[in-house]
């Protein structure tokens, strides 16, 4: 085993201090070291988008970063997006428009969409489809997801 590194990483507003092996992926750090299992791990090579988190506000694949690289940075996972009785408007919209079936891909869609809808408050369908092209869903065929994004945009504009 290689040397351990001390890291201090802010996740969902809470500062976590841990020791990590350099090879520990950020996705596994979130799930195994912090118990934040809302971030899902699908393909582990940057294709499926299930592990998308916000890193200093930008959507990134947490399976394509090492936890040691997040030292001193801020991470937002789906757990930090809203609470069960106080959902984020994007979460509300996915619920109301049936934007999910099994839910495996959903955390990645939600985190991808936060900065997208903040920067594009009234996106076209084409822009929406482009924005979610890095997230794979094997249940819905995307129709309901696109509807959910449109509804989310409406809610966020209101």
């Amino acid at each position, binding site marked *: 085993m290689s040397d351990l590194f001390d890291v201090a990483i802010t996740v969902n507003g809470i500062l976590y201090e841990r020791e990590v092996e*350099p090879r520990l*992926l950020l996705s596994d750090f979130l799930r195994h070291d912090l118990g934040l299992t809302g971030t899902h791990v699908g393909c582990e090579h940057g294709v499926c988008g299930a592990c998308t988190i916000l890193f200093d506000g930008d959507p990134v694949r947490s399976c394509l970063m090492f936890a040691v*690289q997040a030292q001193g940075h801020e991470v937002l996972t789906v757990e930090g997006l809203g609470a069960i009785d106080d959902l984020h408007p994007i979460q509300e919209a996915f619920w109301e428009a049936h934007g999910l079936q099994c839910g495996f891909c959903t955390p990645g869609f939600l985190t991808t969409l936060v900065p997208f809808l903040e920067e594009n408050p009234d996106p076209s369908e084409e822009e929406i489809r482009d924005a979610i092209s*890095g997230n794979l869903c094997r249940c819905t065929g995307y129709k309901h997801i696109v509807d959910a994004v449109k509804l989310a945009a409406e809610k966020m504009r209101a």
Partner: protein
Amino acid sequence: MKPPPFEYYAPTTVEEAVAHLAEHGYDAKPLAGGQSLIPMMNFRLAQPAILVDLNNIAELSFIRPEDDGGLSIGAMTRHQMVEKDAQVVERAPLINETMPKIATSQIRSRGTFGGSLAHADPSAELVAVSVALDGNFKVVGPQGERWVPANEFFLGLFTSVLEPEELLVEINLPPFPERTGWSLMEIARRPHDFCLIGVVAVLTLDEKDQCQQAKLVYLSAGDGPVEAHQAAELLKGQALTAEAIQAAAETAASADIDPSSDIHATAEFRRHLANVLARRALGEALERAISNTQ
């Protein structure tokens, strides 16, 4: 899967990074945005003993306008930053048009301009675009720096002239000539996926609106970026009629490239696409060149 163990260094200067690479040679790999290297490590296709992480080297992230009208981009500048930069729109419109076509937003927020080039993937848009734009690459090693033109930088599949102890630190793009138009076209099964084949066209017109210079560079058509020299030669000095463009596209697809077959497409289909895309890209480049002369 998970990457195998490695030793990890996170230098904050180029000098320090090069010293680590010089000490460890082929055992060490520089880690840029990690959007290609980390998947390869997760699959254990790459198992570097030592990673030299460049992400804390602030001096490698910049977009700098040059006095000659050109632009310099630091190797660790993230795709997303290049994509949104106003100077890139003005001085390197082809780069601006290329950025949103690279992978997905989640990759572009982390992936870097220089990382994509140093990785030398023949299907990477920036590899072909940098050749089409006559880019120059600044490389730093223990013995100092050297400049390598883009068309001499790429040696083959995932292979460049970079020695194990060298770093690509900066990319210089010369000023975009007047009366010049450009186009990047690619065909992929799914948007943002690796393309089956793609082509970059850059056309410069002379005062009589004839072709002064043409560049046609293919991606995903061989082991590196493939310049269609014969097609470009056909266009030089010619009036860019539909027939001239058609003839150049056919020459490019039949004589300049030698695509291979795989599970995604046959070589024959790639040649067909190469012809169609070249015709369309040259047409779009011509339209833009004309509108840039008015």
